[in-house]
């Protein structure tokens, strides 16, 4: 019980409160927002971005970042379609595994440059953002396949994307499973705690004998696999793919992670917070049209939420520093 309270006392609780407020106001305007179908849609929309946010959290905790997630997601989504063009009856599981493998490979490429070549992640992934997208366009123009539609994919694959168990969409179940596993590993495994240590103080991590390079590399690979999975799920859910799937997603993901309370300079934050952040931003996006706000404001709202979250974090840090200073001053007096 005390653990639950501790869990909800931090950022997670404030997001839940914000979420309730957004849902409340929107439902007052249009009651169908909170219908069974409405909730179903909310979770469905948030699932893919939540997967990306879980992967991104692993990296941000270690003081790294991956800006190439949108491009990697687009690449794996596009590959899923290409696999069906090659063989219309490709088993779904094979497509999923291939997507995750490609995502992991992209993550390994980023991770190697960051962990082994010691290039800052911001620069590496900004570069691969364009490189991976370029490969995607190159692939599309070389094969002449610019768009892949639902009728070109197998029924099983499409059913997997749109199906649900006990009213909960498959996508949401997968995102939840990823959330539980990641949260468990970050909380209970030595390697999970070491990710926090690396982000909290790299110098101390080195002195504590933590294999920082290996851990960061692994985080990139795991995050890449999750992004690959998200790309495949995107393909199976929407049933229409072109070479620009996922463009601009990286910023929405970083916004979700930061809004979810993961410190952008590493060392603290939870995957639960990041997923709640993703849910909050998606909910706001869905609520805007109902509240009569044109859809093109969506990006601006993401940005505003990001700025608000960062300002809040900063204000809290300054207050904490001030308090510690005053405490010391009292103790001396």
């Amino acid at each position: 019980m005390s653990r639950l309270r501790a869990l909800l006392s931090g950022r997670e609780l404030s997001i839940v409160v914000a979420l309730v407020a957004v849902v409340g106001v929107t439902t007052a305007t249009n009651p169908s927002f909170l219908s069974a179908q409405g909730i179903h849609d909310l979770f469905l929309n948030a699932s893919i971005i939540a997967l990306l946010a879980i992967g991104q959290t692993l990296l941000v905790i270690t003081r790294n970042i991956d800006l190439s997630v949108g491009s990697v997601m687009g690449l794996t989504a596009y590959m899923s379609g290409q696999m069906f063009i090659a063989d219309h009856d490709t088993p779904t599981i094979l497509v999923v595994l291939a997507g995750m493998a490609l995502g992991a490979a992209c993550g390994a490429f980023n991770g190697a440059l960051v962990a082994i070549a010691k290039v800052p992640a911001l620069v590496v992934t900004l570069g691969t953002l364009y490189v991976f997208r370029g490969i995607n366009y190159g692939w599309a123009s070389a094969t002449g396949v610019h768009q892949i539609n639902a009728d070109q994919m197998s029924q099983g694959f499409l059913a997997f994307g749109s199906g649900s168990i006990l009213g909960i969409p498959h996508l949401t179940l997968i995102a939840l499973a990823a959330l539980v596993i990641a949260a468990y590993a970050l909380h209970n495994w030595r390697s999970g705690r070491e990710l926090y240590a690396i982000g909290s103080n790299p110098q101390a991590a080195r002195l504590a004998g933590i294999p920082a390079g290996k851990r960061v590399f692994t985080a990139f690979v795991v995050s890449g696999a999750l992004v690959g999975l998200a790309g495949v799920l995107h393909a199976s859910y929407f049933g229409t793919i072109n070479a620009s799937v996922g463009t601009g997603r990286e910023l929405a993901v970083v916004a979700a992670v930061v809004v979810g309370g993961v410190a952008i300079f590493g060392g603290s934050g939870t995957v639960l917070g990041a997923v709640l952040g993703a849910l909050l931003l998606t909910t706001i996006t869905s609520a805007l049209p109902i509240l009569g706000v044109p859809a093109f404001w969506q990006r601006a709202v993401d940005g505003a939420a990001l700025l608000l979250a960062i300002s809040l974090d900063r204000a809290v840090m300054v207050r904490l520093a001030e308090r510690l200073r005053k405490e010391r001053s009292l103790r001396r007096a």
Partner: protein
Amino acid sequence: MAAPEHTGVPLLELRDVTKSFQAVRALRGVSLALRAGEVHALAGENGAGKSTVVRIIGGEHQPDSGEVLLDGEPVRFSSPREAQQRGVAVIHQEPIQFPDLSVAENVFMGRQPLRPGRRIDRRAMHRRASEVFEQLGVPIDPARQTRGLSIADQQIIEIAKALVADARIIVMDEPTAALSAVEAERLFRVARGLAERGAALLFISHRLDEMYALCDRVTVLRDGSFVVTERMDDIDNDTLVRRMVGRSVEQLFPKRDTEVGDEVLVVDGLTRAGVYRDISFSVRRGEIVGLAGLVGSGRSEVVRAVFGVDDRDSGTVTVNGKPLPKSKPRTAIEQGIALVPEDRREQGLVLELSIERNASLARLKQVSPGGLTRQSRERELARTWGERLSLKFGSLSDPAATLSGGNQQKVVLGKWLATEPSVLIVDEPTRGIDIGAKVEVHALLSDLAAEGMAVLLISSELPEVLGMADRVLVMHEGRITAELSRDEATEESVMYAATGNGSAA
């Protein structure tokens, strides 16, 4: 457990170890043996190579030649982790921790107790941490976040780390530099307990009385070379100092008598909540005023506020009779204050830039007629000061990073002297530079004062303060606790005030 005899194979031994960093030879032929049950002092001035020895034992650096022996067997620690696995623990002067994580996690990072399924056993971890803190006689809540703990508590965490790792060789690198007398005594008690249980301790301190109080033997280093290893009982204070310094005190501190003139810098009632309060003092023309105190007593913070890089809550600063606005370093420079910061590599120099560029940074207006920087003027300025300070360099266009520590410090000094200040504030001007360069810096400060400059000297090295200053101000926990004339200032009187025993000035 009975204390083992001080004989037999040493737990850890360095034999004829040599280590260079680029052009700088940090260690030449250093030998050192740490025996089970002993506390061994490592003595030497700043820059003598003590920290390099610590880093080699801790696995952060590898020797270029010579051997490290563990239980008589040659070993090569390729990383801090390897050294830790073999039972070595290093406690740094300013402990490096994970501020976001809990105390228990800091203690157990990398060796958390596990439950089946590789799951961290948090309950066992907290229980064990509590036990260790109890054993050390220091109650720290294992569940609290590490951010905001005092340096003394952070050191206890470091020692707890060593204990849970079953370390047999424990290196303490200037652990008392930031501690109060009570905290230091608590640390000594813990250290003696560790030695009694069969660990070998290497203790580094710049305070000789502490070495005599705690240690069994001492090894002295000078300029990276091994000088002597002696039993503490067999070496008296004066001999120890002579071994460390290698020359007489008069040679080391060429202090000239000067005509002391009017007050140039007057600081009145300077206060910043929680950092320092009610700081009042003045520096006169031709005078060197020493500012002494333990690390963390607020000395650097005070001068940073005087110069205007940091804010202050209240108080006034006057230079040559004119009040100085707060938080305006540019105005401070214009009115004649120069601050040579503590960390020259971080705050004093732009290491990638050339020597001449660095030298002109504080005088860009002077070398930039019409807003464009002229290289010829820049070079002229750098050459003038380079000659005056007998700077040793390849070419003025070489990056500052290529210079030795002493020469880097001269560039920083030159940069500020080029602003023709009437008040020169120097923060730890000789930290980490060799004896030769140190003597030159001391001679320069002495000359500047003789020419009428007002000099405020901050130093953690007592001999430097005592040797150079006309007057000594001592700070303790953010207050000035003593003001001593050159005759009154002795190692004892300064330390007495620095640990909070002085009457308020």
